[in-house]
Each structure stands twice: as C-alpha cells, then as structure tokens.
C-alpha cells in the first residue's frame, strides 16, 4: 500500500495527450525544524519520477527537495485515445508510488 498517494489525469487536448499528476508527498528539505522538538526534520523528497505511455518513456524527472510539497507535474505528448499512461516515482528513502490511467 503506497505510503503517499499519487493522482494522475490524462486527457486529449488540442490533439495531444495532456498528462498531469499530483503526488501527496511532504518534500522535506532537511532544513525545517520541528516546532515541538527543535530538531531538524530529515530530508524526505521524491527524487525520481518516470512517466510512460504504453511503456514508452515520455518524461523522466530528477528532483531536488526544492520541488514544492505535494508536487505537481504536467507534460504533453503526441498520443491518442486508448494509451495507457503510467507515472511512477521513488523518494530518497525508497518509498515509491505510482498511478495508471487510460486516455479516453
């Protein structure tokens, strides 16, 4: 069961497939202090994302912790109805997430 949720949306837009996703992830930079303990909250951030359509790579991303919390990503590609789009990610502690949608 994924620790952090991933939501993916795909739709035809102006003849291309628009892919967008939100990953529910804290993206901790390691610089923030816990208000109660005063300790630094350790780094925890998505560092790799892969988007594929019918198993073919559309986009890969290598991220630093300066990507916003609950990160959003959007990309368009030349695709068509019926394409199976998948997004997978992993973070620096090995947590992973993924989601899959078929283009209507």
């Amino acid at each position, binding site marked *: 069961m994924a620790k952090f*949720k991933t*939501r993916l949306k795909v739709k035809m837009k102006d003849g291309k497939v628009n892919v967008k*996703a939100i990953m*529910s992830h804290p993206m901790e930079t390691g610089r923030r202090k816990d208000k109660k303990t005063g300790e630094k909250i350790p780094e925890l951030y998505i560092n790799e994302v892969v988007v594929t359509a019918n198993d073919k790579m559309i986009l890969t991303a290598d991220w630093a912790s300066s990507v916003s919390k*609950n990160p*959003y990503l*959007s990309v368009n590609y030349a695709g068509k109805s019926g394409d199976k789009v998948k997004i997978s990610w992993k973070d620096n502690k090995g947590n992973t997430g993924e989601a899959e949608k078929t283009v209507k």
Partner: protein
Amino acid sequence: MKITMTATIAALAFVLSPLTAVQASPADDVKAFQGYFAKKFKDTKFDDYVNGIYAIDPASRKQWEEIEDFPPYELAVEDGEAMWNKPFANGKTYKDCFGDEVGNIRAKYPFYDEKADTIRTIEGDINKCRTDNGEKPLGWKKGKIAALSAYIAFEGRGKPISIKMPSTEKELAWYNKGKTFFYAKRGQLNMACADCHVYNSGRSIRADKLSPALGHPSHFPVYRSKWGSLGTLHRRYAGCNKNIRAKPFKAQSDEYKALEYFQVVMSSGLKWNGPGARK
C-alpha cells in the same frame, strides 16, 4: 464613531461603524454590504466574489488558476467520500444523520437551531453525528473533518447561498453577535475583520493582498498552500485572529459560530464554491 448598546461589546473598543446603522435589518445589511463591494470593485462580477482575492487581483488569479489545474484538495475530497460511504460500527451512516443526498447538505448550513438555541454548522453536525453513533469526535480544524467537509462542499458546489434571513429574536441575537464580532477591533494590532476585509480589501499588507469579505465562507474548507493541507473555516478564523495578535477563540465556539452565521448571511445570493484553493 458609533458605540452599540449591547453590554457584550462594551469591553471591545467598538470604533468602526458598520455599513448600516446598528438597528438595520439583516436584509438591509446585506444590501449595504454587497453594494459597498460593487462600488469598490466595479469590474468584478458579483458571482466571482466566491473566488476571493482572485476576483479582484489578476496577477494572483493567474497563479491560482495554475494551482487549480490540478486542484490540491482533490485527494482530500476522495478521502471525504470514502468517509461518507463507510458505516459506523453500529451500522449507521452519515447519510442517516444528515438525512439527505450529500449534494443537498452544504446549502442547509449554517442554520439556527431553536431547540438547542445555537447555530448548527457542518463540522458541528459531522461530530454530532459521530458522537450520536458511538464514534469518537474528530479534531475541528483539519484532517478527517476537513476532508469530509470538503467532500460535502464539493458535492454541493454551485448551489445558491440561500440562508434564512434572521428574523426571530434569537436568530437576530446570534446574527448581531456575529456582526459585532466582525466590526469590533481586537488584538494588539487593534483591528477588526472589517478593517482588512471591507475597508482595505484589495490593498496589500506586505506580501498579502486582502480579500473582500463578501463570499468568504463560500469556498471552505480551504486548501491553503501555506498549510499544505485542508482546513476548516474556524481554523482560518483562529489563524486570522492570531495574526492580529488577538487571542483566538476555539473552533465551534459561540463567537466563531456567530461570525460564520453573519458571514454567510452577508454572502446571500452567491453560490457555494467549496472546497477552495488559496495561497
């Protein structure tokens, strides 16, 4: 400088005059309130006030539209839907308590309950439903209660804000309590809700542009980028009070319930627009 007669506000330096005389009817108040904003922001359509600052500030509107491209509250709405559908240990459901399709619920709140002599709010009734059915109540400001409230708000989007105009003595007492709160100065910074959200709406306080109060409650619960999560209306009330260094009241306190009641009356005619995304 008008000082109202009620004893309760004697302690608060009531320096601001509301937009109408203290003895005006709620309907008169609504007219004056909405008229004030119509005059102040001539290019803004009435219906757009549910979008708060984005109705009057194009630069931040553009950023908001980017964020709304994938609304950050969607995940919470899904969680709320799961909650709505899951029966309690005793087999009853939220639907049993609220007694209606989920899409009809948002527009029923808040309302004055004569028997209990109190204002009933959505979050209040969510927890009432839970405790009535042997479940533990949820925290008032965020997390699960906000998710369920978001689902209810989402399903009820677009329904008109048609709250009953306060007319009975008790209704008016609650209404005036909320109205007084709204216009009363408080805190170390000695400011009233109206200072920022009526008289100075559209202006900037350093990094923040002040949203108009008209339509405020329509888009709650709200996903604030700053929180990175969803929060209820009373969560925001407390935050706002802390900002002006006033002691915040408890969520679902009489003060905040009265304020919510007043604010929803002032937003009559707009459409429910929750959940919202803000900075």
